[in-house]
C-alpha cells in the first residue's frame, strides 16, 4: 500500500511536470496572443518525432537540443505567416486555424513516419534503475525527465522574473495592448513567445518519447488533457498552470491505481435497481473512470470557478 502510494506519487509528479512543460507554453501563448493553440499537443508530437529522427542520426543528446529548436522554428513560422494573417478575422478564425493545423500536422507525421509506433529508445547512458523502492525498480530515465522538467521550470522562472524580455512578457500577459503602446515590437515578441512556447512542448515530447509510445496519435491522446490543465489552473496564470498540471497528473495516476467503486463502498446497502440500468454506475471502479476524471474536474471548475483555480483573467 505504501509502495503504491510512493510510486504513484512519483509517477504523478512526473506526469504533472511533463504536462506543465506543455501547459506553460500554452498559457503564455494564450495570455499574449489571445488564442488557445489547439495545435500545441501537435508540437509535442513533432518534438518526439524530430527527437527520434535526430537521435537516429546524431544520438540522443544532440537531439535534446536540436529537436526543440526545429519545432520552435516551425512554431515561429506558423505564427508569422499563418496566425498573424488570420488574426484580423477574429478569435474564432484563429482557434479554427490552429484546429486545422493540428489535423494537418498529424497527417504529415503519419506520412513521413508511418502510423505504427517508432522505436525511440532510452539512451543507454540512462537505461538503468535509479533506485529500488520496496522491491520495485524506479528507472533512472524517469528521474532524468523530472530533472529536465524542473530545470526548465526554474529557467523559465528566472527568465520571466529577472530578464528584460521576461518583464515585457509578464506585462503582456496581463496588459498586451499597453505593451504595444509602449513601443515594443509586439509582432516580434509574439513570434518569439509562440516559438518558445512550442519549443517547450517539443522538449516535453523529446524526453517523453522514449518513455511513452512515440506514435502519430500522441497529440490526440494528450491534447484534451492539456486544455483541462490550462482551464483548471486558470487561463493566463503560469502558477495556475503549474498547480493544474500537478493536480491532474496526480489525480490521473492515483485514480488508475484505486479499485474502489460504489458497490465496493456501499455494497450491502445496494438498492434493488442497482442491478439493472444503474448497474454500470454501481459497479464501475475508480480505475475505470480514471480517464474521464480530468473532464469532470473541468466541468466542475467551469461551473463553480470559471476563472480557474488561480486565474486572474476573464476570457
Amino acid at each position, binding site marked *: 500500500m505504501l509502495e503504491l502510494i510512493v*510510486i*504513484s506519487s512519483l509517477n504523478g509528479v512526473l506526469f504533472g511536470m511533463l504536462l506543465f512543460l506543455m501547459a506553460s507554453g500554452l498559457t503564455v501563448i494564450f495570455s499574449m496572443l489571445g488564442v488557445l493553440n489547439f495545435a500545441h499537443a501537435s508540437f509535442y508530437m513533432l518534438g518526439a518525432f524530430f527527437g527520434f529522427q535526430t537521435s537516429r542520426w546524431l544520438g540522443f543528446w544532440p537531439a535534446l537540443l536540436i529537436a526543440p529548436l526545429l519545432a520552435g522554428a516551425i512554431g515561429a513560422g506558423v505564427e508569422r505567416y499563418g496566425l498573424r494573417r488570420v488574426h484580423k478575422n477574429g478569435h474564432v478564425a484563429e482557434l479554427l486555424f490552429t484546429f486545422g493545423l493540428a489535423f494537418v500536422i498529424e497527417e504529415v507525421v503519419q506520412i513521413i513516419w508511418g*502510423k505504427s509506433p517508432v522505436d525511440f529508445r532510452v539512451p543507454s547512458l540512462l537505461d538503468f534503475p535509479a533506485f529500488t523502492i520496496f522491491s520495485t525498480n524506479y528507472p533512472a530515465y524517469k528521474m532524468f525527465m523530472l530533472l529536465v522538467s524542473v530545470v526548465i521550470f526554474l529557467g523559465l522562472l528566472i527568465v520571466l522574473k529577472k530578464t528584460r524580455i521576461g518583464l515585457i512578457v509578464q506585462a503582456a500577459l496581463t496588459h498586451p495592448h499597453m505593451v504595444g503602446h509602449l513601443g515594443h515590437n509586439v509582432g516580434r515578441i509574439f513570434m518569439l513567445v509562440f516559438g518558445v512556447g512550442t519549443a517547450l512542448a517539443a522538449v516535453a515530447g523529446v524526453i517523453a518519447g522514449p518513455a511513452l509510445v512515440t506514435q502519430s496519435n500522441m497529440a490526440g491522446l494528450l491534447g484534451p488533457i492539456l486544455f483541462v490543465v490550462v482551464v483548471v489552473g486558470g487561463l493566463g496564470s503560469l502558477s495556475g498552470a503549474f498547480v493544474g498540471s500537478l493536480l491532474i497528473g496526480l489525480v490521473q495516476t492515483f485514480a488508475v491505481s484505486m479499485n474502489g467503486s460504489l458497490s465496493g463502498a456501499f455494497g450491502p446497502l445496494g438498492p434493488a435497481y442497482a442491478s439493472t440500468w444503474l448497474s454500470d454506475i454501481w459497479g464501475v471502479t475508480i480505475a475505470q473512470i480514471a480517464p474521464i476524471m480530468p473532464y469532470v474536474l473541468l466541468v466542475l471548475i467551469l461551473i463553480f470557478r470559471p476563472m480557474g483555480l488561480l486565474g486572474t483573467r476573464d476570457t
Partner: protein
Amino acid sequence: MRKLMMAAALVLPMFGTAAMAQDTLKIGYIDPLSGGGASVGEVGLKTFQFLADEVNAKGGIQGKKVEIVPLDNKTNPQESLIQAQKAIDAGIRYLTQGNGSSVAGALSDFVAKYNERNPGKEVLYFNYAAVDPVLTNAKCNFWHFRWDANSDIKMEALTNYMKTAPAIKNVYLLNQDYSFGESVRSAAKAMLAAKRPDIKIVGDELHPLLKITDFAPYIAKIKASGADTVVTGNWGQDFALLLKAAADTGLKVNWYTYYAGGTGGPTAVKQANLNHQVFAVGEGIPNLDHPSSQEFEKAFRAKYDVSVFYPRAVNQMRMLATAADKAKSIDPVKVAFALEGMEFEVFDGGNGNMRKDDHQFFQPMYIASLGDRTEKEPFDEEKTGWGWKLVAKIDTPQTILPTTCKMDRPN
C-alpha cells in the same frame, strides 16, 4: 487500375447502370486504410492481394480472375456500412473484414438485413479477424463465416496447454475494458477453474482502452500479488506500454497473450528484453516445420517485407476457391452451402473444418514464445532478430467449443 475503377464505380452507379463486367470475382476488403488502424489494415490488404495473385496464377476461381477491392472504413462502423453499400452497388458480392468486432457486428447485421430485403442479390461476409464470440453465438447468421478462432476458442486452446504446465501457480488477469477484454477474462476464469482448480487467480484487472500512458501502477499491483503468470488480451499500444513498464521495473513473469504477434508487438517484446517469456496463441507461426507454408512465407516477405500475420486469410481464400469448385458456381448462396461443413487441410498443416451450426472455422492452434532463434527457427519478426519458437500444438478436437447459434437458413 483499382483506384480508377473505384472512382468510376463511384460515378457510374449513380446513374443506376448495370454492374461491372462479369469476368472477375471481386472481393471487397473493408478495413482501415487511413488513420490509426491503417498499419494493420494495409498488412491485411497485402495478404489478400498476394493470395488473389496465387489463385489467379492457377486460373482464377471458376475461370474468373479474383480482384481485391480495397474500401477504407476508417475503423468506423457507419463508414463500413457506407463502403459495403458502395461495394454492393459496384457489383461486389463477397465482403471481407477483420479489424474491430464492433465493425464486424455492424457488417454482419447489415448483410443479414440486406440479404433479407433483397432476395436474389445476396452478399456473403467473410470475417478474418474479429474475434468477439457473440458473432458466432447469439448474433450468428447464415451469411457470416469466421476463419479466426474466436477469443473463447483461443482461451480454450491456451488453458488446455496450461493444464500441462504445472509451473503455473498464480495467474494475474489484466485486460482492456471493453467487450473483447471482458470476454478474455471471463473465459479465462471459467476455463481455468474447470481445468486447473489449483491455480490461484491472484488478480483480475480491467483498464481503460488505449488511454493509459503509464502502466507502472498496474505492474506494481502485479508484483504485489505474487503472480508468476499474466494472461492478457492487450494489443497495440496497451501491449507495448505494458511490456515497457514491466521491463522498467524488472518484473519477471511469463506473459500469455493473444496479440504479441501483432504489428509492433515483437518490437515491444524485444525492447523490453523479455526473451522467451512472452507467449502467444494463434493458428500458426512462420517457424513451423512445414515446407509449403515456409515457401509461402519466404515469397510473401520477399515481396512485401512483412510477416504473414494472417495464416487464416490463406485458409479463407483457398477454401473460397474450393467451395466455388464444389458448387460449380460463384453464386454466393451456392458457395455458402458448399462452405459450411467443409473439411480442409489448413495452411500450416493439419485438419480444419467450418462448422455448419455457427460458421466458425476450427483449426489446430499453436502456443509459441518469442525470443532468440536456433536453426529450427529461420524466420525472425519485425527485424528484431527474435522469432517465434513452437511451445505446444493443440489439435483441432481440443479447440472445439459448443455454440448457442440458431441461424435461419435460406432454402
